[in-house]
C-alpha cells in the first residue's frame, strides 16, 4: 500500500472518471451520499470522496505493508486472491471460524433470519441453524450477559450490537462481567467472547446512532479493543478476536462496510495487539484508526504534493496500544499527530497522547497534536455533522503547523 499511495500522491491529478462498476456493484446509498463530501486541495482543486474511492478501486492490489509477520497482499501471494467488500470479509472470517470450531456461535438482534442489519451474518443462519446464529429479543444487557455466561461455560459467542451505541445498554455486563470475571474468579473462568458492531459517525444518522463507544469502554480492565478499517484487517481481526481467549470488542464503522478490496485466498489471522503501518515516512507520525484512516490518507496525498513525508500508522489495537510500532515511529520522526473520531474529552487520542508522552517524551520535538471530534452530540444537519469531525484539510493544516 505504501508504494501505491506514494504513487497516487505524487503523480495523480484527481480523476473524475466515474467507475460505474464500483458504484453499481456496491449499490449502496451510503457511497452515493459520499458525493456530499468535498475535499479542497491546497492547489484549489476540488473533488468528491467518491473519486477517492474510485481511485482506490482502480489501484486495489494490496493492503498495508505492516510490521512483523503480517503477510503481504495477495499480489505477492501464490494465489490471485479475491475481491470483496468489508462486510463480506467480516462474514468470511466469521464463517471460517464457525466451520473450524463448533462452539463458535453468534447472538444479536436480527443476525439470523434478517442476516444482520449490515449483512455481516447474511446466510449464516440458513447454514448453521437458529441456535448457532441466534436472533435475540431486544435486550442488550441480558443477551450480552447471556453471551458471557455461555462463554464461561465453554462456548465462544460473538455478540453483535446492531449499532455500537446500543451496547451502552449492555455496559453493566461488559464492564462488570466481561472485563472482570476472569480476575474475580481467580482465573477460573475465561470469557472468550467477541463483542462487535458498527459505530462511529455515519451519514446524518443523528446523535444517538453516531457514537464512539471506544472511549467509554477503554478503561474497563480485562478487555481488549480493536478497530478494523480495511477488508483485509477486518477479516484478520475478526478471526483473531474469535480465537482469542480474552474478551475482545471489535469496532467496525458504519461507513466502511462497502469498501472493496482484494484479499488473500489463503487463511490468515492478524495479531490483535499490533498496529498497521499504512505508509512509512520521515517527517511526522500520524496515528489514526478506523474511518479517520481514510481522511488521513486523503490528507497525505495533499501533504506529499506539498513536499511532506508523513508516516501513517493505523493503530488498530485501541487497547492495548502497540507501543513498539508507535515508539519506533516517534523515534524516527519526532513529531506526532493523532487523528481520531472520538470526542476530544477522554477519547482514545487522549489516552494515546498520555501514553506517548509518558514513554517517548525525550524523542518528541514538539507537543503531540491530537485532532478529535468536537465535544458535541453529532448533529443531524450534514454541514454541522461535517464540522464535528476532523476533515482532511484540518489534518493538512495541523501537519504544516507541526512541521514548522
Amino acid at each position: 500500500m505504501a508504494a501505491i499511495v506514494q504513487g497516487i500522491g505524487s503523480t495523480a491529478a484527481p480523476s473524475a472518471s466515474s467507475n460505474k462498476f464500483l458504484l453499481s456493484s456496491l449499490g449502496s446509498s451510503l457511497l452515493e451520499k459520499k458525493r456530499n463530501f468535498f475535499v479542497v486541495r491546497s492547489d484549489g482543486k476540488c473533488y468528491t470522496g467518491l473519486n477517492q474511492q474510485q481511485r482506490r478501486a482502480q489501484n486495489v492490489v494490496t493492503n498495508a505493508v505492516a510490521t512483523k509477520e503480517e503477510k503481504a497482499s495477495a499480489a505477492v501471494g501464490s494465489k490471485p486472491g479475491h475481491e470483496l467488500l468489508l462486510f463480506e470479509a467480516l462474514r468470511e472470517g466469521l464463517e471460517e471460524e464457525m466451520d473450524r470450531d463448533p462452539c463458535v456461535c453468534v447472538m444479536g438482534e436480527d443476525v439470523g433470519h434478517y442476516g444482520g442489519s449490515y449483512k455481516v451474518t447474511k446466510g449464516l443462519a440458513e447454514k448453521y441453524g437458529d441456535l448457532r446464529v441466534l436472533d435475540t429479543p431486544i435486550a442488550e444487557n441480558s443477551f450480552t450477559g447471556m453471551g458471557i455466561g455461555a462463554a464461561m461455560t465453554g462456548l465462544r459467542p460473538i455478540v453483535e450490537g446492531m449499532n455500537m451505541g446500543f451496547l451502552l445498554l449492555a455496559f453493566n455486563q461488559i464492564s462488570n462481567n466481561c472485563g472482570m470475571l476472569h480476575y474475580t474468579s481467580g482465573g477460573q473462568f475465561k470469557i472468550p467472547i467477541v463483542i462487535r458492531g458498527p459505530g462511529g459517525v455515519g451519514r446524518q444518522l443523528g446523535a444517538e446512532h453516531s457514537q464512539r463507544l471506544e472511549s467509554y469502554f477503554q478503561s474497563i480492565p480485562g478487555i481488549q479493543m480493536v478497530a478494523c478499517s480495511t477488508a483485509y484487517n477486518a477479516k484478520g481481526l475478526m478471526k483473531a478476536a474469535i480465537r482469542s481467549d480474552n474478551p475482545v470488542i471489535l469496532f467496525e464503522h458504519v461507513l466502511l462496510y462497502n469498501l472493496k478490496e482484494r484479499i488473500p485466498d489463503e487463511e490468515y489471522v492478524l495479531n490483535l495487539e499490533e498496529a498497521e503501518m499504512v505508509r512509512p515516512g520521515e517527517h511526522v507520525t500520524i496515528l489514526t484508526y478506523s474511518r479517520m484512516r481514510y481522511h488521513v490518507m486523503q490528507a497525505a496525498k495533499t501533504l506529499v504534493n506539498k513536499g511532506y513525508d508523513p508516516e501513517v500508522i493505523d493503530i488498530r489495537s485501541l487497547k492495548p496500544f502497540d507501543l513498539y510500532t508507535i515508539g519506533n515511529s516517534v523515534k524516527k520522526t519526532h513529531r506526532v499527530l493523532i487523528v481520531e473520531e472520538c470526542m476530544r474529552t477522554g477519547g482514545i487520542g487522549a489516552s494515546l497522547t498520555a501514553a506517548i508522552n509518558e514513554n517517548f517524551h525525550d524523542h518528541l520535538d514538539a507537543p503531540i497534536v491530537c485532532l478529535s471530534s468536537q465535544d458535541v452530540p453529532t448533529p443531524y444537519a450534514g454541514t454541522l455533522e461535517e464540522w464535528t469531525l476532523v476533515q482532511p484539510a484540518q489534518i493538512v493544516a495541523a501537519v504544516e503547523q507541526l512541521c514548522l
Partner: protein
Amino acid sequence: MAATAFSASKFTQSFSLNSTRSVDRPPLFPASHPLKTTPSSFLGSTRKLSLSSPSSSTSRHRRRPCRSPAVVAVSEVVKEKKSKSNVSLSNPLITKEEGLELYEDMVLGRSFEDMCAQMYYRGKMFGFVHLYNGQEAVSTGFIKFLKQEDCVVSTYRDHVHALSKGVPARAVMSELFGKTTGCCRGQGGSMHMFSKEHNLLGGFAFIGEGIPVATGAAFTSKYRREVLKEADCDHVTLAFFGDGTCNNGQFFECLNMAALWKLPIVFVVENNLWAIGMSHLRATSDPQIWKKGPAFGMPGVHVDGMDVLKVREVAKEAIGRARRGEGPTLVECETYRFRGHSLADPDELRDPAEKARYASRDPISALKKYMFENNLASEAELKAIDKKIDELVEDAVEFADESPLPARSQLLENVFADPRGFGIGPDGRYRCEDPKFTEGTAQV
C-alpha cells in the same frame, strides 16, 4: 386486598399463616397465630396454582386464563405428595440419609455464617459481607438436588450457595479473609465466590447481574445438546436472587428469553421481603412474584422457603422439568434473613415482631423436629453433626488464618486469560514477557 398495598405487618402475618399449608396436611409448624382464619389465597401457594389470579386478592388484577397446565401439575404433584404423607407420620418425605444430609448442610450454612460475623467483628474480613442466616432451606432444598455439572449462579449473598454446591468451607473462609488459598485466590471476596470445579458461576455484586449469566449457562446446556449433539447433556442451571431483583429489567428480560428458548434453568427468588431497608411491598406494584412467571409463559410457583422439605419437593419438580427439556420455572420462596442485609446494616426498620415470627419458623429447628417426630434421627446423632460442623468451621478459620496473603506477583495475573492482552511494550516484547510482570511490578 388492602394487605398488598398498605400494611406490611398484615401482609407478613398472612404470609406466615398459611404460606403453604394445604388444608389437609398437618403443618410442620403449629399454627399459633391468632389471626388464623380463612387461608389466604392471596399467596396462591401450593394449594391452587391454576393461573387464574387468586379470587380474593387485589381486585385490581384481572383474572388471567389458565395458560400452562404445568403450573397446576407442579402444585398437584406437591399436594399429592403431601396428602400421601398425611396418611401416616411413618411415611415421611425423606429417608434418614437424606434427612441427615439436609440437616448437615443447613447447619453448615448457619454455623459458617455465624462464624463470619464473628470474624468480621474481629477484623479478619472487610468490606460488605451479606449473611444468609434463616434462608438455609432454600439453598439446601434446591442445591442438594443438583449434580456437580449443574450450574449455580448467586448474588452477593453467596457463601451458603457455595457451601451447598460443594466448595470446601476452607476455600470459602480463606476467600473471605482475602488469602491466596481462597476459592478465587483472594481476588473476589465475599460477593464473588466462583468455583469452576463445582460449577458455581458467581457471586455478583450488582443485583440482577447474574441472571443473564445463568441464562447463558443454560443456553450452553441446550447448545451442547442440540448443536454439539451431546444427547445426554441435561445440565440445569439455578439462578438465585432476591425480591428486590424482581423489579429489575434483567430479571424480566431473562424470563422472556428462557421461556422463549425453553432453557433448562430454574429462577429461584429468595423473597425475604426486604431489600436492605426497602420493604418488598413498598417497591413492587404486584408483590406476588410467582405470578410473573406465567406472564412470560413459564410456571410460577410459590413455596414456603422456611421449610426445607417443601422447598425440596418444588425443587425436584422444577429441576426435573428443566432436565427433561420442558423449560424454565419461576419459584418464589418465601423466606427471611435473621440478620441485617449486611454486617454493616443496623437493621432498624424491620419489626421485631416480624423477626420473632420468622425466628419461630427457623428451618433448622423445623427439620430437627420433623426428624424426631418421624424417628429419622436421634438427638445424639444430630448433636454429633452439630459438633462435626463446628469443628469443620473452626478448622476452616484456622486454615484461613494460617494461609498466606497474596503476593505482589499475583497482581497482574488473571487479568487476561491470554496475558498478551496487556500489549506490546516500547521494547517490542509483550508486556507479559517482562520479568517484572510475574513480580507484579511491570508497567502495563
